[in-house]
């Protein structure tokens, strides 16, 4: 609820993601600002996503989303994606080496 209030306070409307038609490349490329291009971070960086097992990716994202104390800002970001989008990203990164 706090997050919703904040979004409203920021003057931004809120939209659901259930019907969004977003290319998996757009979803995956959005991660790169922190996790590196193709999920390959620079040295001493955040978690590598490329090659991560699909089930591990999904599990991590669910934990982050459901527990606000889990991952600092990543807990906020995890809330922006639907379950289907998380699964699509998981499969995408699992295939990258």
């Amino acid at each position, binding site marked *: 609820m706090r997050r919703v209030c904040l979004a409203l306070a*920021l003057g931004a409307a*809120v939209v659901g993601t259930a019907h969004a038609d*977003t290319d998996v490349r757009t979803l995956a490329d959005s991660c790169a600002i922190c996790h590196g*291009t193709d999920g390959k971070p620079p040295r001493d960086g955040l978690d590598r996503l490329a090659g991560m097992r699909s089930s591990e990716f999904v599990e991590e994202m669910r934990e982050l989303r459901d527990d606000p104390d889990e991952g600092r800002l990543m807990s906020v*970001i995890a809330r922006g994606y639907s379950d289907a989008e998380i699964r699509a990203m998981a499969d995408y990164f699992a295939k990258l080496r």
Partner: protein
Amino acid sequence: MTEITRRGFAALVGGAAALPLFGTSFASAARTPRVVVIGGGFAGATFAKYLRRAMPTARITLVEPKKSYVSCVYSNEVVVGLSTLKPLTVGYAALAEAYGIRHVRRSAVAIDPVARRVTLSSGDKLPYDKLVVAPGMAYRYDALPGWNEETAALLPAAWHAGPETTQLAARLKAMPNGGTAIITVPPAPYRCPPAPYERASLFAWYLKRTKPAAKVLILDANETFPKQALFEEGWAKLFPGMVTRIPGSKGGAVQSVDAVAMRVVAGAGSFSGAVINIIPPQRAGDLATAAGLTDQTGWCPVDPRTFASKLVPDVHVLGDAAASGLPKSATSANAGAKVAALAIAKLFAGRPVTDPLFINTCYSRLAPDYAIGIASVFGVDPVSGAIVVRNTGTGTSPLGASLGYRKEEAEDADKWFRALMSDTFA
């Protein structure tokens, strides 16, 4: 002035054009999409790289007169001696070598949207099928009495990183113990909304250690600001009594400045500053204005699904210059550029453009081991076409967190910055 021939073009840009991987034969050149990108900041560089990933054979030219780029992100750290400009400076060699981007070291001076040609400072003309304009923001020298091209040398804005950053650092260093460092904040929108408050924080951190009788005064045209509660909590905890802010409703908007007397006049009164940092009102970069891409706001209206200009066909505007609905930040510039790259590749292929998604992330450092963050995941509302938060994907660092938590966020910030730079330029 003739169009640049292929031979002359290769001479102009040096080795990059000779790359066999991305080269096109003369015969097929006519059918190879030509994309020209003007401006090599976070938006332009990200776009060039990600368009290459989406269009392996396109001819992509980056028009940018400078040899290297200096990041504004982390430049507040340089002002107070926590970093130098060197780790903030990056060249374009990786874009040329790894992605086959032709870097033309010229300024773009005009756009002909009918003939679809860009005129360069050399007089040469560069033809395009799609043009991407990412000139960043420009200072409005005409908006604040007393602050103009001449007095800006005495009152450095340091809202472009580089020499101004060094000038402001020198002034802060020369400040006596006991004076006031004044920061003036222009009306939104301006580049990097939380950055004035990060700068005020780092000023206070620096002054507390070196000139503890000094104060920091923020004269603010705005009423509220991002991460406000977190900043105010940090100021009270780290530098009690040192930072004062006068918001717009209490007369915080600066009305004039006197660079010789070193005084600032705002609605709330006249203030004397040992250091005066005018963060000037801003607009889209010069080329955007000259090319008719701006509206009465001084910014460029675009469709946030493709970043196509609403005013000029076949021209897309990215980064701070665009009025897309995204914050004017480096991460938004990076995120928007990726969306535009994929959208333009789909437009060339005659395929439908898919729904965009953008992450904006921004850390602010209040002290070496103390950072706070904000993040949002944005999409586009299918009905209004406006940028909106997806689900509940927006928020900040928690209030009342421990010093250990803030230290972890400072480490997150360093990792974020390194990844952002490499995702954009390498």
